[in-house]
């Protein structure tokens, strides 16, 4: 049970995981509604499934090399599982067809962790680094940032 909970917590720990309608407790799994809406070709500009998967891998590379937050992710373990769940989340959030997110909601997963805004922003910085790593243009990266940003309310509890 404990490891299963850890699995859920770890999977949802990716602070940039996509969300449906942030601010509500509905399960993550729909395209994020933003004002204005994010580009419909954002997923394609990220390189589709292949590119998006590489991006999440690059994100975790930066997270695990970021001493401000790597220990938090490491303590929860099962990094491979976290990566896989986040690949699902990001794809769903950008509107990829035929993908389903199988992890827990952001607020449920982060409830007991006392995440600070500084730690959340560290992941935002790592996300931008991952975009640069993969030569994804800044404007395209911002579509993903826009979709992820509302999760701040669910994840940051301090």
């Amino acid at each position, binding site marked *: 049970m404990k490891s299963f909970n850890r699995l859920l917590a770890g999977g949802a720990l990716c602070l940039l995981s996509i969300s449906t*309608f*942030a*601010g509500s407790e509905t399960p993550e799994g729909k395209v*994020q*509604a*933003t*004002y*204005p*809406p*994010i*580009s419909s070709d954002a997923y394609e500009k990220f390189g589709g499934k292949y590119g998006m998967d590489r991006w999440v891998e690059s994100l975790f590379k930066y997270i695990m090399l970021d001493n401000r937050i790597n220990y938090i992710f490491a303590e929860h373990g099962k990094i491979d599982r976290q990566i896989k769940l986040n690949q699902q989340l990001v794809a769903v959030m950008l509107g990829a067809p035929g993908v389903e997110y199988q992890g827990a909601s952001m607020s449920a997963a982060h409830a007991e962790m006392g995440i*600070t*805004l*500084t*730690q959340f*922003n*560290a992941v*935002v*910085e790592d996300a*931008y680094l991952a975009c640069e790593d993969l030569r994804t243009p*800044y*404007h395209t990266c*911002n*579509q993903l*940032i*826009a*979709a992820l*940003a*509302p999760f*701040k*309310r669910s994840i940051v509890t*301090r």
Partner: protein
Amino acid sequence: MNGTIRGFGCKSGIVLAFAAGIFACSSPAQAGIYDAGKVLATSGVNITDGAAGGGITPWAVIAGYETNQGINGSIHYTYANLPNYSLNSLGASVGFYDRFELSYAYDLLPTGSTFNTVGLLTNTLAGVVIPDSGIDPFNTSIRMDIFGAKLRVFGESIYDSDSLLPQVALGGFYKINHNEELMKTLLANKTKDFEAYVAITKIFFPLDLLVNVTVRYTAANQTGLTGFGGPNKNKREFRPEVSLAYLLAKNIAIGAEYAAHGKNTDGRGVAVGGNIDTSVLGSITGALNNIGVAGPVGSLANNLNDTLTQRESDWFDVFFAYFPTKNLSFVAAYANLGNITLTPKQTGAYFSVQASF
């Protein structure tokens, strides 16, 4: 003039001491309150009035890189080079828990040759006892202290991308202009006054765009550099200001700002000799023309009247901002400040450097 340079040096000393104090607080021993967790560039820069914002407009963002967990701040130096003036602004701002901000700026405006015309006029009125016009023989410099405070009231400029709600802040300035005699010459009503503003800021990530609208309640002339109010009274009004910043990269922004100004001393002359309002010359010329006595005397008075008539334009600038790290940022801008007191077409370069902790 010596006094103004010494004053500037003294104030820089105070700002640097403040900076050193904050820097000392940022050592590991004090790591409890020092915080630099904000995303790069998201607290804007320090404006010439000292508060956090764009170049000339205060925004709803709170100064410094701190989040709700700590305290941070920044110091800035800005230099603008216009045909008849240069503006130096040196200041510091501190943000408390991304909620409350205090700022201080010292603006120094050497006026170069601008008021030499008036100086010449006052000197040629021989035999008349002239009170101090506040105009030095060379390079009159205008000095102003600006104390600012800002409170973030509600909203979130960055993270609420699923909502249209912006971040809103209420703020104010108390400005003290030190050139009392010159302000009287320029027909301002007061040399010290407050301003209040409400600022509304939001970042739209899908468009890479930051939008800010500020409404300022003020009676300032040229942000207070030429005093407050006009010959009649100190009438405050609401003036809109807009900033747009387009993010080219996570550390580069380009944009434009517009700030409405007032017309307190528009169309007025200057109070030469303390009592003579040169706009009176206009009516004299008119009268002369009406009775058919024009010619050289009339033209002379007319020309003098035009030269010595003040106007004030709205301000407009386009800028390029670069944030290499959280500790350092630069802004280069082209400013079109239009008419400033007696001189038209004040357009020129603006450069600002800012250091954060």
